Each structure stands twice: as C-alpha cells, then as structure tokens.
C-alpha cells in the first residue's frame, strides 16, 4: 500500500540503479571515514613524545679493561659494551660469511674493532643473553648464550646456533671522543 509517488524498494529501473549508487557511495564514505577516525586511537598507543625524547645516552669507556664488559641502559633495554681481547677480535674476523645465518662481516658490526656495542636483547623472543660476567656461560662460540631457548652468539654478537633468526642488533652510536660514545 505504498504511496503511488513513492517508488518502493526493489523495483527495477532507473530509480533502483540510482538508489544502489547512493547506497554504495554512502557505505564507501562511512567505511573510509571510520577507518580514518580509528587512526588517532591506534596511534595513541605508539611511543609518546616523552618516550621518544629519552632515546640517547652517553657512556664513558675509560673504566672498561680489556676483556671486560659492561651493561648500560638505553631506551629501557640493556646495551652490552665489550672491550674485546685480540683473540676475540681475531675469532670474530676469521669466520667465513657462508657459515653464518645472518651474514655480516665483523667490520660492519664494530666501528673500532676493540669496542663491540650491542643491544643485549636476544632476537628470538627478547630475553637477555648471558655472557656479560666472566662467570656466565658464553655458549659454543665464546660470545653470549641465551638461556631462554638456547641461542648461541659469537664474539661479534652474531647468531650461530639456536632458534634466534638474527644477530644481536648494533644500536646507532657515535664516538664523541676516543673513549666516550653516544648511543642513539
């Protein structure tokens, strides 16, 4: 009992096509509008300005003797700094690249061969590998050993054995003087 001048829905013809067009256009606007409106909510969960601002730290290397390692904090994560011995450097440099899961020559990983700076977070699931203290197990390759699921890293922090897919990350750092670095 529709009013004679009101076209009823579902009647084929010009009106129906026009109505379909309006329906699709409205839906498209609504969907993209909603998607755009979601972005501020999603982005609010990304690191805030103050978190980003905390992202560099300076370290004095003078007190670290040859063969010693220290751990500093950068962006809430540990950073390993190892003053490598000549043997450790030699071991790291003499590895054949095709022996590596994540091939990278030692020269790309250390700005000065005696100083190795690494993010001390296992690239598997984020545990902190052991090997900073002289009493720690250092794994089969003399670097670090992650106890969580058994990843072995060499004296260049490269993954050699275990489930981790990648080498320990090298953070951005610069030598401010011969014995100070800024990380980040």
């Amino acid at each position, binding site marked *: 009992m529709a009013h004679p001048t009101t076209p009823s829905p579902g009647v084929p013809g010009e009106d129906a096509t026009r109505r379909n067009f309006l329906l699709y256009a409205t839906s498209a606007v609504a969907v993209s509008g909603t998607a755009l409106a979601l972005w501020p909510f*999603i982005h609010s*969960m*990304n*690191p*805030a300005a103050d*978190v980003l601002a905390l*992202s560099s730290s300076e370290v004095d290397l003078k007190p670290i003797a040859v063969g010693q390692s220290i*751990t500093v*904090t950068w*962006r*809430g*994560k*540990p950073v390993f700094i190892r003053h490598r011995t000549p043997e450790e450097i030699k071991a790291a440099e003499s590895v054949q690249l095709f022996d590596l899961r994540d091939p990278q020559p030692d020269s790309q990983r250390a700005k000065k061969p005696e100083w190795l700076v690494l993010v001390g*977070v296992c690239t*598997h*699931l*984020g*545990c*902190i590998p052991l090997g900073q203290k002289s009493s720690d197990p250092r794994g089969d390759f003399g670097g670090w050993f992650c*106890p*969580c*699921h*058994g990843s072995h890293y060499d004296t260049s922090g490269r993954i050699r054995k*275990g*489930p*981790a*897919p990648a080498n320990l990350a090298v953070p951005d750092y610069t030598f401010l003087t011969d014995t100070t670095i800024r990380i980040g």
Partner: protein
Amino acid sequence: MSAPANQNKIIKWVDDRLPIFTLMQHSAIEYPTPRNLNYWWNFGSLAGFMLVVMILSGIFLAMSYTAHVDYAFDSVERIMRDVNYGWLLRYLHMNGASMFFLTVLIHIFRGMYYGSFKAPREVLWWLGILLYLAMMATAFMGYVLPWGQMSFWGATVITNLFSAIPVVGSSIVTWLWGGFSVGNPTLNRFFAFHYLLPFVIFAIMFLHVWALHTVKSNNPLGIDVKGPQDTIPFHPYYTIKDLYGIGLFLMVYLFFVFYYPNLFGEPDNYIPANPMVTPPHIVPEWYFLPFYAILRAVPNKLLGVVMMFSAIIVLFFLPWLDTSRVRSARFRPIYKQFFWIFLADCIVLGVVGANPPEGIYVLMGQIATFWYFFHFLVLLPVLGKVEKTRPLPDSISTPVIKKSMEKA
C-alpha cells in the same frame, strides 16, 4: 508460550514492556533439557560461575592496585599484608584463574568426547573457542599486573612473538609496548585491557548461551531429542544439579585458596621486575604450557609462532575435520581410544612446556606436536570415513525405559 506462572501485577506490567521475565522463564526454568546429562555437563555453569568470581574479586583488587612500574609490585604486596582480606581477594583471583581454565578445558574436552561441536552446534563451538582465546588474553595480561620477574619476562617473550611477522613485526611490537621495551605504557594498557576483556567475555558468553538455547544441549548419547519424553525442564532438575556441582567445585577451589595458594604460581614472581636480568628459566602459567611447548618444538622463530597459533585455529575447523556422522564417542570404539591418546598428548605437551628445552624434552616436544596436528588433520578426517560405529539407540528415553522394565 506461557508467560511466567505466578503472575504478579507488577511483574506483568514490566514484562509487557520488556519481556525479561518471559525470557528467564523460557531459558532458565522451562528450557527443555535432555534427561540423560551426566556430570560432565556441569562444567559450563561452573565456568560461568568462575567468570562472576573473577569479575567480583578483580574489581575489588582494582580498588587497591596501582598500575605503575614503580608502585605495582608494592601495591600488590600491600593488598597481601595491609588491605583487609586483601590476601583472600588476591588468592581467590590468582587461583580462580587456574580454576576457570580447568573448568573450561574440561568443558572443551567434554565437547570433543561427545561430539558437541558437530552440526548444528558449529557456531556454539566457535563462540566457545572465542571465549577460550579471550580468556587467554585476559589471563596473560592479568599475570603482568603484579610486575614481578615472571610478569615482566612473560610479557616480553609473548609480545615478542609478534616480531616474527615479516616486515611490520617490529613496528607492531613497539606499538604493543608503547615504547622500546616492556615498560610503564605497557603496564597501563594491559591493566585497561585486563579490566575490559572480562566484560567482552561476558558478552560472548551471552551469545554462547543464546546459540545453545537455539540448538539445545547435546547429551551423552549424542543423538537428537525426539520429543518431550526425552527432556526434563531445566528448573528444578538442572538448577539443583548445577548448584550441587558448584558446592563440590568450591571445595576444590577453596582448598587451594586456603591451603596451597601459591601452588600454581612461580616463586620468581615475588621478585620485583628487573628489565636487566632474565630469570634462568621462564615458564608461563600451567594453562599455557602445551602451546609454549609447540612454540619451542620448531627451531625456527616464524614457524614456531605460526604453529602455536594454528594449534588454536585448528579448533575452529573441528566440525568439518571430524567427518563421522556419529557424535558421541560411546558409539565410536576407535575414536574413543584416540580421544584419550589426544588428551594424553596434550598433557605430555604440558610437561614438555614446563621443562627446559634440552635433552629428551626436545624430541618429546616434537613428537607430541606432530601428534597434535596429526590427530586433527589426518586422523579425524580419515577415521570418520572408515570407523565402524556401534548401533545408536532409537531415542534418549528408550534405554532408560528398557532399564526400568528390566528392573521391574
């Protein structure tokens, strides 16, 4: 159908405007329930009971809890020592999570044994798996709140699972953390979600029960209800049985709360979180152990993560993977045995997950993981086609009537 029996004028006035009393009458009183349900059918209502306990204890805990990395651990210790009955609230909540999972797991295995996931109950089953997933997310985030060593490192390892996603993985992890490691923003949002999700669970539970009342309960024989002679009204028969079950269950639950409150916990979680030191052996709560074992069974990060999530996703496909037309394992002599093997397999995975991934546990984990997927992807589809099932009874009431005639 008839409106509520004791028609009070006020009730009728409200009911004419919002038929909430009619709804309750239909779904909690008259609801025709198969007459042959056994005690394994108690675990659904037990799970609902546990959700109420968790929400209640949780809200009162939240009144004394502080979601900040510098105060969270101490605020939980204050709950334990200074807040009146704080220890009770916390132990109810801690052990309640274990009991909630226990009831839900029994409920799921019950469904597998009696074929409750089969047509027409697929959507009901899906909603159940969704509930299970939401519970896991809730419990994971809750475990982070006391900010002990296991809280912190559990959160680190689990959020890092997402870094296995190619290309965008590490941006997703940074987004989840709200920083460059698990920290204060992470703790804050986990508290927000931990508060929210139980109410989402409540909503899904409502849909789950709605679906149940549309397709009606399965039963130990796995055959359809043929008529009124096969059913009894929910009230008083099953209200009283569920209540009795809650009584028994409370004895078990409160035994742990009062006598072994830390049995399910990890001593390391009483050490405040230290982002610079990983505990030598990270273990998740017991209800995550089988999945943790699957994750570690594969020596490849991405594949391990994919397998772990697949172990749950595969449950959504169960209604089509099990090709047998017979629901209940009572009439499937071979499936029945594989059901128990599967249950044992899940327990083996749990044991492997609790132990360090060395020596014999590596191989055990790999075999058990293989069997888990083999069961779903190969065994069930083939078995349904080849198994010779036992004859089904004509109706739910036939064996009952026969038995009472034999006795007479």
